[in-house]
C-alpha cells in the first residue's frame, strides 16, 4: 500500500455534448428555433427525457478505461493532443469532477495547480489574496501565516503587498499566484500548463521550485504541451490518445509516440478533426504550405520563397490568424501573427476566405516542421488546431551560401564573413 501514490483503475468519463453546431440555414428558422426551444425543452423535461436544461444528445467519452499506478516521488508527464482527456484526468484526480466509471485512489494530500490565480479577487490586496487563495487551495490559516514571508519573497512583490491586485501587472499577478500555490506542501501535486506564463526568469524559478518538490520525494503529475519542458522535468510519460492510454513508459518514449501521431494527423482532412479549441463560429478548413504562387505542392527549400495559405469556412469581425512553427522534437521555432501589422501587408478581396502569409526567404533549416494554427475573431479564440499541417524543408541556399543538412539546429540566417587574408 505504502509504495503507491495514485492508483487509477478503469477510469472513464462520459460527457454529453449538445448539438450546438447545428447550422441554421435561414434566419426565420433560427428565430423560430429560439422561440420554440423552451417549449420543446420543457416538454422533454416533463417526459423525463433530459436531465437538464442544457439540452443533451451526443455522448463522448473523454476518458475510457484508463489504468495506471504512480509511485510516491515519481514525476509523470501526461501528453496528448487537445481534447484527449488530459485535463479531464487531472480534474478527476483533483476531485473537481467525478468519473463516470472506475475509480482513482489517492494516498495523501493533493494540491492542484490547474490554473494560476483562480480565486484571486481584484479588489483585495496582495496580502489578503494570499490568505484567501491559500485557504481555497486547502491551507490552514496558521500555515499561511508561517509561510507568508517566504511566499512574498518568492513572488518578489514585497513593495506591493498592501496594494489591491487589480493594480498589479499581469507578471506580478502570476508570480504571486504561483508562489502561493508552490508553497502548498501536498504529497501529490497536479500541475496543468501553468508555467506557460510569466517571464523567462520567473519560469526558471518555478521550474526550480517544481524540481525541489520532486526532490523532496513528492509526487508530481504534470500536463503540458511543451515537450522540452516535460523532458527536463519528468522521467515517466503517459501518452493519451482519444481518451485511452496509448503509451506508458519513459518520457522519451511517450514524447516520441506523441510526435509521431502529430505527423500522422497531417493526412487527415482538417474539417473532420475534432481536437480543436475555441468558440467555433469560424473554423479552419485547410492549411497548405507551397513554394510558389500557383499553389502546387512542391519541395520547400531553405532560402526559397514560401506561401502559407489558411482557409476558413466563414468570416467573423476582427479576424486574425496566428501560426506557430515547431520542430520535430516539439520545440517552438517561430510564430507569425496577422494582427501585428507591417507596412507590406495588404487586403485582397479576391482572397475570399483565405489568409495568406508570404515569405521571400525561408530561414528554416532542412528538416520537418509542424504548424499549430489559431484563428481569432470577435475578440475570442475561434479555432485552434495543433499540427494543422506538417511540412518538409529540403537543402537550399541562403544568400547564395549552400545549406548543409544538420539535425541539431532549425534556423539559418543571411550573413557574411569578413575574414583575415586567405593564406
Amino acid at each position, binding site marked *: 500500500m505504502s509504495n503507491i501514490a495514485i492508483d487509477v483503475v478503469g477510469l472513464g468519463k462520459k460527457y454529453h455534448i449538445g448539438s450546438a453546431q447545428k447550422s441554421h440555414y435561414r434566419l426565420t428558422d433560427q428565430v423560430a428555433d429560439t422561440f420554440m426551444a423552451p417549449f420543446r425543452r420543457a416538454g422533454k423535461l416533463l417526459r423525463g427525457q433530459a436531465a437538464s436544461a442544457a439540452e443533451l444528445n451526443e455522448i463522448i467519452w473523454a476518458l475510457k478505461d484508463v489504468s495506471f499506478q504512480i509511485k510516491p516521488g515519481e514525476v509523470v508527464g501526461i501528453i496528448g493532443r487537445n481534447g484527449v482527456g488530459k485535463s479531464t484526468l487531472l480534474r*478527476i484526480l483533483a476531485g473537481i*469532477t*467525478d468519473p*463516470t466509471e472506475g475509480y482513482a485512489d*489517492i494516498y495523501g494530500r493533493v494540491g492542484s495547480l490547474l490554473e494560476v490565480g483562480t480565486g484571486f479577487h481584484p479588489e483585495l490586496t496582495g496580502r489578503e489574496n494570499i490568505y484567501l487563495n491559500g485557504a481555497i*487551495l486547502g491551507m490552514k490559516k496558521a500555515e499561511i501565516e508561517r509561510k507568508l514571508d517566504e511566499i512574498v519573497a518568492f513572488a518578489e512583490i514585497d513593495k506591493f503587498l498592501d496594494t489591491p491586485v487589480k493594480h498589479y501587472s499581469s507578471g506580478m499577478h502570476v508570480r504571486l499566484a504561483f508562489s502561493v500555490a508552490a508553497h502548498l506542501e501536498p504529497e501529490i501535486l497536479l500541475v496543468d500548463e501553468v508555467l506557460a506564463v510569466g517571464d523567462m526568469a520567473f519560469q526558471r524559478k518555478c521550474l526550480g521550485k517544481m524540481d525541489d518538490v520532486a526532490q523532496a520525494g513528492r509526487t508530481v503529475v504534470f500536463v503540458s504541451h511543451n515537450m522540452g519542458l516535460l523532458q527536463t522535468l519528468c522521467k515517466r510519460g503517459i501518452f493519451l490518445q482519444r481518451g485511452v492510454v496509448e503509451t506508458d513508459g519513459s518520457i522519451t518514449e511517450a514524447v516520441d509516440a506523441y510526435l509521431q501521431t502529430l505527423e500522422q494527423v497531417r493526412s487527415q482532412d482538417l474539417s473532420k478533426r475534432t481536437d480543436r479549441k475555441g468558440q467555433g463560429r469560424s473554423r479552419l478548413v485547410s492549411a497548405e504550405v507551397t513554394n510558389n504562387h500557383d499553389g502546387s505542392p512542391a519541395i520547400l527549400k531553405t532560402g526559397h520563397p514560401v506561401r502559407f495559405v489558411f482557409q476558413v469556412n466563414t468570416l467573423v469581425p476582427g479576424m486574425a490568424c496566428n501560426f506557430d512553427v515547431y520542430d520535430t522534437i516539439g520545440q517552438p521555432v517561430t510564430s507569425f501573427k496577422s494582427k501585428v501589422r507591417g507596412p507590406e501587408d495588404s487586403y485582397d478581396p479576391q482572397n475570399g476566405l483565405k489568409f495568406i502569409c508570404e515569405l521571400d526567404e525561408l530561414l528554416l533549416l532542412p528538416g520537418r516542421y509542424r504548424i499549430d494554427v489559431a484563428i481569432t475573431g470577435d475578440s475570442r479564440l475561434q479555432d485552434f488546431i495543433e499540427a494543422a499541417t506538417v511540412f518538409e524543408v529540403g537543402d537550399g541556399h541562403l544568400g547564395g551560401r549552400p545549406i548543409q543538412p544538420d539535425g541539431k539546429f532549425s534556423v539559418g540566417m543571411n550573413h557574411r564573413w569578413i575574414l583575415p587574408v586567405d593564406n
Partner: protein
Amino acid sequence: MKETTLTIPSALPRTRRQPSKGWVPPNLRELWEYRELLFFFAWRDIKVRYRQTVLGVLWAIIQPFLTMVIFNLFFGRLANIPSDGVPYPVFSFAALVPWTFFANALTQASNSLVLSGNMLKKIYFPRLALPIATVVAGVVDFALAFIVLLGIMFYYGLVPTANIIWLPFFALLALVTSIGVSLWLSAMNVQFRDVRYTIPFLTQAWLFVTPIAYPSSLLPEPLRIVYGLNPMAGVVEGFRWALLGTDTAPGPMMIVSSVVALILLVSGAFYFRRMEQGFADVV
C-alpha cells in the same frame, strides 16, 4: 464526489474518486475541515461588498430604512393598516430587518456558484462553503440594521421587552431559512439559469406573503398555522414579539415555521450534494 478516508496502518490517508451514487448525505466533516475557507469567503464578501461605493456600508441601513418610509406612507398612512398597537414605522422596520437579511442572502447566494464558475472548474474545495459564506456575510449588514432598529425604538420611547432573550432563536431561524433556500437556489442556478430571472419576482412575492407591511393578526387563528408554512412569517412575528411585545407569542405557527425551515435546510443540503458532482461540468 464520494470521499472515503480510511486510515491504513503505515500509509497516508486514502481518498477515492469514484462515480457518485444518488442521494448521499452532505459531507459535513469535510466542511468542518474547511471552516477557515468558509470564514475567508465570508470575509471577502464583506470586504468587497461596498468597495467603490460612495455611501459604503450605509447601504446596509438605507435599504430597509427607505422601504420602511415607503411602507409607512402607503400602508400605514394611506391604507391605515393596523400595526398591533405599536407605531407603524417601528412595526414595519422590526420586520424589515430580518427580511432584508433574508432577501439579500437569497439574491446573492443564488448567484454565488455561477459567479465563481472558474473556481469550480479549477479548484477542489467543499462547494457548500460558497453559498453558506455568502449568507453568513450578510450578518454584518443585519447587525448594523439592527442597531438602527434599536435607535428607532428608542426614538418612539419603546423599550425591548424581556422576551428579547428569545431573539437569538428567531435570528437563527432566519439564518437557517436563508441557508436552506440559498442551497436550493444556488445549486439549481448552476444548471438552470432561469433561476436568476425568477429571483426578483420570487423575493417580491415572498415579501407580500410575509406579514411585513401588515400584521398576521389580520388572519383568523386557524389560518395562521397555515401561514407558518412560510418560515419568514414565523421569523417576522417572532421578532416583533421579542422586541415590541406584540400579541404574537410563539405558538403553533412558530412550530410549523421552525419545522419548515429545518426541512428546507436538510433537503437543500441533500439536493446540493446531489447536484454538486456536476457543477464543474455544467457551470
